[in-house]
């Protein structure tokens, strides 16, 4: 008998996720190039310094649109309930794979929900400060320098989150990445990571 699979992310959800993901990586690469002279060579992936300077804010708009869609798609599932708070209290057990002491998570665990909220706040910060830096002639030096400082600070947060997100979604938890590629997960994966979530089964 063939093991049935569980649908986790729809086609639209996956498209939106990868628009945000790919644009963010492109933005991070060019942003790091502008922040660190030793990484300036990263601009060559977008056609050199001047091209990267032109493309960075344009890709930023795409990123902004993507994250706006993402917010609309997922916000309903992202409010923390009582068991999520208990989950956060037991995060040490989660990190050490001590499943017996981890309160069961729903479709998203508390870590994923917080990730969602932090990235939403960072995205707003990115877009407001990025907008200022895109049209520097309209603002004074103090505003621009402050915007630059906040834009870099957001990058630091976003970069750290990306590392954690990619690590947990790939090598740390095998079977997770396929949810964002094929859109499906195995029942065993769902039982381990999201016991309170009962997704729709689909035939292989």
């Amino acid at each position: 008998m063939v093991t049935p699979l569980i649908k986790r992310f729809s086609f639209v959800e996956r498209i939106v996720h990868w628009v945000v993901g790919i644009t963010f990586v492109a933005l991070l690469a060019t942003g790091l190039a502008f922040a660190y002279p030793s990484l300036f060579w990263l601009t060559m992936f977008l056609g050199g310094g001047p091209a990267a300077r032109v493309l960075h804010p344009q890709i930023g708009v795409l990123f902004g649109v993507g994250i706006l869609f993402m917010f609309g798609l997922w916000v309903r599932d992202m409010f923390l309930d009582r068991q999520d708070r208990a989950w956060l209290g037991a995060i040490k057990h989660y990190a050490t794979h001590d499943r017996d002491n981890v309160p069961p998570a729903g479709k998203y665990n508390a870590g994923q929900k917080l990730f969602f909220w932090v990235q939403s706040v960072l995205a707003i910060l990115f877009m407001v400060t990025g907008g200022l830096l895109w049209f520097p002639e309209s603002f004074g030096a103090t505003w621009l320098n402050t915007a630059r400082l906040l834009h870099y600070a957001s990058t630091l947060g976003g970069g750290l989150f990306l590392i954690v997100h990619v690590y947990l979604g790939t090598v740390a938890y095998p079977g997770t990445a396929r949810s964002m590629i094929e859109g499906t997960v195995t029942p065993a994966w769902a039982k381990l990571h999201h016991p309170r979530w009962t997704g729709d089964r689909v035939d292989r």
Partner: protein
Amino acid sequence: MPDTLAIKRISASPSALIPLASLRSGGPVYSKLVDISKCIGCKGCEVACKEWNDLKVEQTTNFGSFQSHKDLSSNTWLLMRFNEVELGDGDDLTWMIKKDACLHCEEPGCLFACPAPGAIVQYQNGIVDFNQDNCIGCQYCVSGCPFDIPRYDKETKTVAKCNMCIDRVEAGLEPACVKTCPTNAIEWGIKEDMLALADKKIDRLRERGYEHAAVYNPGGVGGTHMMYVVPHGDRLEDYRLPAHPTASPGQLRGLNVLQRVGSYLLGFGVISALVHFLAVGPERPEESV
């Protein structure tokens, strides 16, 4: 005296923080000295600047001032600002003229703010030059400049400003504005000599009753390579000269700290993930359903 054009700082490179030492001994360090009390407002310097640097001519309009252009632009690198000021209560109207152009700071805020390697170069002789070939058009230099000098060009998508006629200086000549000035209000020479000359000029102005006459060579940017002798040193704002310009405003200093801390934090993030993986390994679901 021919100049060697030895480089001191290059934007977005380690030399932006620690200036390069010159192999050559005792190269000349130049400065312009603009004696505002001697300026007759002829604007000959503006014409010379346009001519020597082959800068495009802009259509100007009469906006009720003797000033030629309203503002500097990417092809107007020098503008004599005819600031109209009433000195006393209802007293005579005075022009507090300012030669508005790059001051060529010893600590250039534009260069510190620039993320493009080699787009801004400072030479040992004091000249700060923009190299448009390396400019990416981000305009960070504009917000880094405490004197509001660099101007963005929408067509070339690069930033431009006075280059102190570096091609003339290299050949042992003075900048074009200096050469043309009919009253020697703009002088050119070794910076120390210019400072000594400024002191003499100030003494003379004080004898004439300008008790607040002063030299403008602000320490917040390490001194400048275009200095002014201002008759009314107590009214810098009327000349549109910032009283306390700084090359490194607080936000940009914060940025430097953030960049350094950030690189460690991101590295720490990657290493933590690796250590975590080696410590507890992957968590595989039991495929038995």
